[in-house]
């Protein structure tokens, strides 16, 4: 089946998300849709899938125009989409998830789970998609959940598959497996639209590449005709600067010492499994790894948000094991949390209040229990200027700011108090290029002022750009700690997949 978009336009108040986009996906083709965060790729695919309605232009399937009012229509026409956030019911089994909406039933609407499971097995064999039909989805690894999503589309006999950033959550090995599956689907005559912002993957798998930037198609090319540098330039519109200018680290003694720490996750499973790590004053240590390998729990442990099951944590030589979040704050730990809207900000509060969220109780912002609103406002105005937070007034609710400016509020708050250790988790996730550069510079600046900096990131590029030392985490353990200047990306990638050295395959 052939998909054609002609002049598709989608406007949202204040911006044009898709500006007259043309795109053709041929039958049996793997077509990469490449672009930065915010380039309009997902919006475009949501239009194709019937989730949004276009303001202009048309969509053609095998040459005839179609209008999808809802995903149901798109599915009916042979489209399938694997969303970035899986559309799976976590407590259902694989079979239940796959058959949901087009269930096999016996008399009186009773489910025929056996028949459905049989079909699931058939499809998974045909395309090499290994899934256990009776397993509960939430107990499966992310890579397998993704296969369930693909299977769900195939179960509905999709001819065109849209994969939205499918590799964001996968290890390099799992990514390879996914590419295998994509190739076997291609052989079966399916078309695949592969949304991504990762250049290497595009060159590895795509037949054709369409690059989007700021809502427009910048160009279409093939892997043979282009290079990483050229694609990057097309994507961003200027040469990308991945390296951050920084002097070699000038370390001045340990600040954070983590010793044999074990941390349990919400379900009582071991998430951090005997990690030891030291961060010195004046250096940046980055924890690299695929999402969900215990980094979140490690960060929560070294900020006091999650109790540790065993081991010890020392700050500046003082044992702080078991201290409260407040204890860690007082000891000089600054925290830029992974989920800034959940853990970092009170969205309904003003910028000024958010800037003093963890210092509001002490001088100069309060005397005894009485707040000094004047001092709070004055300090807020100062910081809004110092940290380039774009807003009309410090009294605005922080919810009205863009993601980048919200992150700057948190940075502004944490950097304005005397901290000895900064813990930043995914500090630039979801931000635009300008904000990313700004935040990287401030992190290095903090290091140069003599703070110890611990950064957790799943973006390998970010890790390589910022780190003085790189700790790779896999399944709750730190496999190795490498000096950044000699670390090769390939080696780190292997470690992220759990491979310790040559000849040793990834576990599991």
């Amino acid at each position, binding site marked *: 089946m052939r998909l054609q978009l002609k002049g598709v336009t989608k406007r*949202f*108040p*204040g*911006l044009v*998300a898709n500006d007259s986009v043309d795109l053709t996906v041929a039958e049996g083709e793997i077509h990469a849709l490449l672009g930065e*965060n*915010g380039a*309009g790729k*997902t*919006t475009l695919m949501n239009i194709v899938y019937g989730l949004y309605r276009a303001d202009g232009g048309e969509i053609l399937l095998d040459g005839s125009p179609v209008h999808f009012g809802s995903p149901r229509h798109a599915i009916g026409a042979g489209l399938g989409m694997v969303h*970035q*956030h*899986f559309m*799976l019911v*976590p407590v259902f089994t694989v079979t239940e998830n796959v058959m949901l909406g087009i269930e096999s039933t016996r008399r009186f609407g009773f489910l025929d789970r056996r028949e459905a499971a049989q079909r699931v097995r058939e499809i998974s064999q045909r395309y090499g998609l290994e899934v256990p039909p009776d397993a509960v989805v*939430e107990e499966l690894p*992310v890579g397998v959940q993704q296969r369930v999503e693909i299977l769900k589309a195939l179960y509905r006999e999709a001819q065109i598959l849209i994969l939205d*950033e499918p590799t*964001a959550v996968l290890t390099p090995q799992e990514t390879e497996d996914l590419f295998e599956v994509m190739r076997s689907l291609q052989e079966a005559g399916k078309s695949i639209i592969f949304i991504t912002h990762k250049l290497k993957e595009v060159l590895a798998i795509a037949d054709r590449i369409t690059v989007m930037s700021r*809502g427009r198609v910048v160009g279409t090319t093939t892997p043979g005709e282009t290079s990483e540098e050229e694609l990057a330039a097309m994507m961003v519109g200027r040469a990308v600067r991945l390296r951050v200018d920084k002097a070699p680290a000038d370390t001045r003694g340990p600040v954070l010492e983590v010793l044999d720490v074990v941390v349990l996750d919400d379900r009582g499973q071991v998430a951090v499994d005997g990690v030891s790590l030291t961060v010195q004053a004046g250096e940046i240590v980055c924890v690299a790894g695929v*999402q*969900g390998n215990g980094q979140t729990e490690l960060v929560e442990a070294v900020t006091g*948000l999650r109790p540790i099951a065993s081991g010890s944590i020392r700050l500046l030589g003082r044992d702080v094991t078991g201290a*409260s*979040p*407040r204890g860690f*704050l*007082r000891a000089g730990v600054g*925290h830029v949390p*992974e*989920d800034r*809207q*959940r*853990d*970092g*900000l*009170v*969205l*309904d*509060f003003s910028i000024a*209040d958010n800037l003093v*969220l*963890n210092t*509001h109780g002490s001088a100069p912002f*309060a005397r005894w*229990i*009485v*707040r000094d*609103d004047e001092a709070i406002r004055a300090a807020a105005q100062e910081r809004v200027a110092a940290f380039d937070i774009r807003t009309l007034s410090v009294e605005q*609710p922080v*919810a*009205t*700011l*863009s*993601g980048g400016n919200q992150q700057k509020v948190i940075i502004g708050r944490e950097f304005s108090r005397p901290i000895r250790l900064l813990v930043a988790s*995914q500090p630039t*996730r*979801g*931000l*635009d290029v300008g904000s990313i550069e700004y935040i990287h510079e401030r992190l290095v600046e903090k290091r140069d002022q003599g703070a110890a900096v611990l950064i957790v990131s799943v973006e390998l590029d970010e890790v390589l750009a910022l780190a003085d030392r790189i700790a790779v985490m896999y399944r709750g353990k730190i496999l190795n700690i490498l000096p950044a200047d000699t670390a090769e990306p390939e080696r780190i990638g292997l470690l992220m997949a759990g491979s310790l050295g040559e000849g040793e395959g990834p576990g599991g």
Partner: protein
Amino acid sequence: MGEPIGRPPSDGEGDLPSTGDTVPQEEPRAAHEVEEEVLAAGAIVTTGRGGWRDSLLVPFLAVVTALVIGGLVIVFTDEDALREWAGFFRDPGEALSASWRVVSESYYALFSGAFGSPSGIGRAFVSGDLDQIRGALYPLSETIVAATPLVFVGLSVALGFRAGLFNIGAEGQMNMGAVVAAAVGFSMGYLPGPLHLVLMIAAGFAGGAVWGAIPGFLKARTGAHEVITTIMLNFVAVSLGLYLLTTDFYRQQAEPIARPVEVAFPHLFGTNLRVHAGIFVAIGVAAAVAWLLNRTTIGFEFRAVGANPDAARAAGMSPTRTVVAVMALAGGLAGLAGTNQLASVTPSLIPGFASGLGFDAIALALLGRARPAGVVLAAFLFGSLRAGGRTMQAVTQTPIDIIVVIQALVIAFVAAPALVRAIYRIRARRVAGPDAFAKGWGG
């Protein structure tokens, strides 16, 4: 790069943390959509940025609409009016005028019972006769007397709302406050009056605070939802009160009535008018609560925990401790309502002492938008309904329970401003506010 219009959609699905969906361009939303969503999420308790339309117009229209529907209920449950309606096609005019008669009589009685008749008051003042003035002001005095305990219980629920807690237990807390206050009130008559009164107030506060702290503690330690535990504790408080009334310490002779307290708030305008100094205490306490919430670090933590407990915890606050503190304080406020009643119109603890006030309290907090000043205004409105309702029942035999119906309608409309807007075709204005307590059972 467009600025996002409102709070980006919170992303609850899946186990995976979001990657990039907070970028404004990826998932932009139409302005009106965002508006609707924010409206819906923050419809209950706004934090003070709504503008006059939302803080005054909507509650006003809610009250008006509730009165209109209440009027319809009165008509369609009035036997005379119903008889005329049965003959509607024969004489539609008579049906309508009979209905009008029933409603206007009821509501006139309600109004004059709450505020007195304007002409009567005017005449009384012209005459200059003190007794006559007092007589004319009697309804107003009754309104204030009825409003006073409502201020306390309303504040109790409002305080909980601001910290993200739904305290349905004001009734039980009021009962327990009264139980303790009564004990102090009738057993320490040897103390000098003012000291005795202060001690009784403190006792009432403490009794309510303990009763409120229990669900707070349960929530903090076990995650038990306060809506269920506070309701259950209301029933337990009633039983406990009934039991105490059978003990020799509380009982007076054989009646199921406790011994009367031996101290009371001074009357403001002589003993003929029941209005008493409790109203000043109530307004003072409301001011104190407002100060606590808005001007102190403690209040800031309460509000932060209410708006986002995760961020509050990460910022070094203790949501669990806050939950216990807020519930204890809320319980104490409700306990003050019990004390107020003992020290004024109901000196003896009796069964059913606080019945219904817990639900009124929720209505008051919602109508007052969880702000102390709003609660005071709402309390006067409800006080006037209560005082007027008694007159209405006496004059027109319309049962006073219609007041409860009207109050419930008021909350429904206040809680669903979209409903009021739909009725009156008011254009929606953006109000941002905390998604106060749509948190499910997880705690």
